[in-house]
């Protein structure tokens, strides 16, 4: 069975996509430990069973809002086979921020370019192939309200579920030499702690530490030795001073 999760900014048509994918086979529960509603449903496509979980709509994946934390924990801890990132095609600039964060998490991503009809209506042209190449993941245009493109989306989900090897650093993921150096320095230290790397992607951990993310830092304090922690704090401090 393929485990897929839907994520996206609020108001991009995520619920419609979810309903289109799963139809009436939905069940509603809660994410463990919190009251954030967890909707899940199933479908069968090309003889593959797909379980779809609807994650809360968010703009970002920080540790301070409940919805965002739930979504990100689900992605890093439950490691679904495919993450479908639903993006409003008429507002790529804002929507791609979440996509960047998902790429950092090394998620096995399919970008759903929704509201394709409106993109066309505005006379905007998007080079889907090139976008897919730059992001390093499939990009599927859809129109959730009419169901257009949904078959392509299902195909992409099934196709990419098997291709975990394709993951890794994408073209989109170059944050400039200074930051990339900091990231690799922290990564090097993290690499030695299987306790962390077995659970989380290294690059993501490194970025979150550099950003001073509360919940990751807490994890780090628990599993790093004091000398390792000191080294990382040292890198952060140096980076902080160097970047103005």
């Amino acid at each position, binding site marked *: 069975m393929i485990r897929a999760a839907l994520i996206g900014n*609020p*108001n991009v048509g995520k619920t419609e996509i979810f309903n289109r994918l799963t139809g009436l086979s939905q069940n509603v529960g809660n994410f463990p430990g919190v009251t954030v509603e967890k909707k899940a449903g199933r479908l069968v496509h090309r003889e593959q069973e797909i379980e779809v979980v609807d994650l809360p709509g968010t703009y970002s994946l920080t540790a301070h809002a409940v919805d965002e934390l739930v979504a990100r924990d689900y992605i890093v801890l439950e490691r679904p086979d495919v993450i479908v990132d639903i993006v409003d095609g008429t507002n790529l600039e804002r929507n791609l921020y979440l996509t960047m964060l998902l790429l950092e998490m090394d998620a096995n991503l399919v970008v759903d370019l929704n509201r394709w009809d409106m993109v066309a209506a505005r006379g905007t042209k998007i080079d889907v192939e090139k976008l897919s190449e730059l992001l390093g993941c499939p990009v599927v245009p859809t129109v959730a309200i009419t169901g257009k493109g949904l078959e392509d989306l299902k195909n992409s989900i099934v196709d990419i579920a098997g291709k975990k090897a394709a993951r890794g650093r994408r073209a989109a993921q170059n944050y400039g030499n200074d930051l990339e150096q900091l990231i690799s320095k922290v990564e090097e230290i993290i690499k030695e702690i299987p306790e962390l790397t077995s659970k989380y992607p290294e690059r993501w951990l490194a970025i979150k530490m550099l950003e001073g993310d509360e919940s990751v830092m807490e994890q780090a304090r628990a599993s790093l030795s004091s000398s390792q922690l000191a080294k990382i704090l040292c890198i952060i401090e140096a980076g902080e001073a160097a970047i103005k």
Partner: protein
Amino acid sequence: MSEYAENLRSAFAQRRYERIASIVDSTVIKGRGEIFTLTDMLDQVFLNKHLGIPIFLTVLWTMFQFAFAVSEPFVVIIEKIFEMLGAWSGQAISDPHLASFVSLGIFGGLGSVLVFIPPIFGLFLALSVLEDSGYMARAAFVMDRFMYRLGLHGRSFIPLMIGFGCNVPAIMATRSMDSEKDRMITMLINPLISCSARLPVYVLIAGALFGAAYAGTAIFAVYALGIVLAVATALIFRRTLFRGEPSPFVLELPPYAVPDASSSILHMWSRGRMFLKKAGTIIFGMTIIVWFLSTHPWEETSGGQVIAESYIAWIGHAIEPVFQPFGWDWMAAVALLFGLVAKEVVVGTYGVLLGAEEAGLGEALVSQELFTPLTGFAFMAFVLIYVPCVATIGAIAKETNSWRWPAFALVYQTALAFIVSGVIIAAGRLVGLS
């Protein structure tokens, strides 16, 4: 948030945006720029300075009319089905214990709650359509200035609207609010918004006491009372418990959409089934307890015939003094007691106590002279305000992650219920009502 990585954090955000900008630059050719959409056109009307709020009130009126007036024949159909089943079970079941349980407990108690499925689902459907069409966000937008003056956040508005359906999803909907103070206020006042579970009580009491001509007015008055109290409480909380200005209002207005019938119905169903689940579990369970207490001891009550000899009468008489000043009898006292669990149980309890005769519950209320219009209205107000149901308390506890706030909500609302009902009774007696 740790303070030491401020620069790094903004550097990361900035680099992400730079990457996005370069990706968008090389893949997107913008259309003729600004285009005028249907959404822009509709917003010219629905967000109009003068028309915005009147149109919202029109929409609200249409929603309630749809839920209450249009569902009437369906209520009658369910009533008739229960009547038929009740009559059939009376003949078919020979064991007196079981017959009493089926006719009083199931058809009288649970049945009196289940007949409210049509208006409750109607309300859920109307709310779903408003949300799915994109209008709900506009309503929040036009009400924002008004809300701000009340010390509330524009975003509190949608949870309050959802509260008309059920307070539990409404309290969950506060999650998208980023200011903790705004969120707390919205959660704490939400139970004052009259949810659909309270509707059965209003319909029963108002229908029986005010007659067809004025029942609607009385029900409208209770809804309005709830809104006024929510507003007043919000103002007080803002000036005492959660001082400070509401955080600035940033709300995105999604484009309008013609609501897809199947997804609106799905939306309604996912909320409505919570009501069915509640009916099947909590309400049914409470009904069994009420039935047991009102028909036992079996010999003394002659199999539930002489309710005055039952355990429930004993309990009722024990707590009756608390409600005596309001002019409510022991039945009202036990109804309120069992209604603590879920407010529909108030009606369910009357259903068991008065029996499900053909005359109907309302007429039984009138013929036994349990309420005057004044005490009845005070009773409706009390049911509106007192103790949010168990599910709501649970939702507040989960969302605030403590038992302090739900306990606080419980105490302040119960106190408020006594005060408001007391004021209604006192004012009514002052002008010569009984």
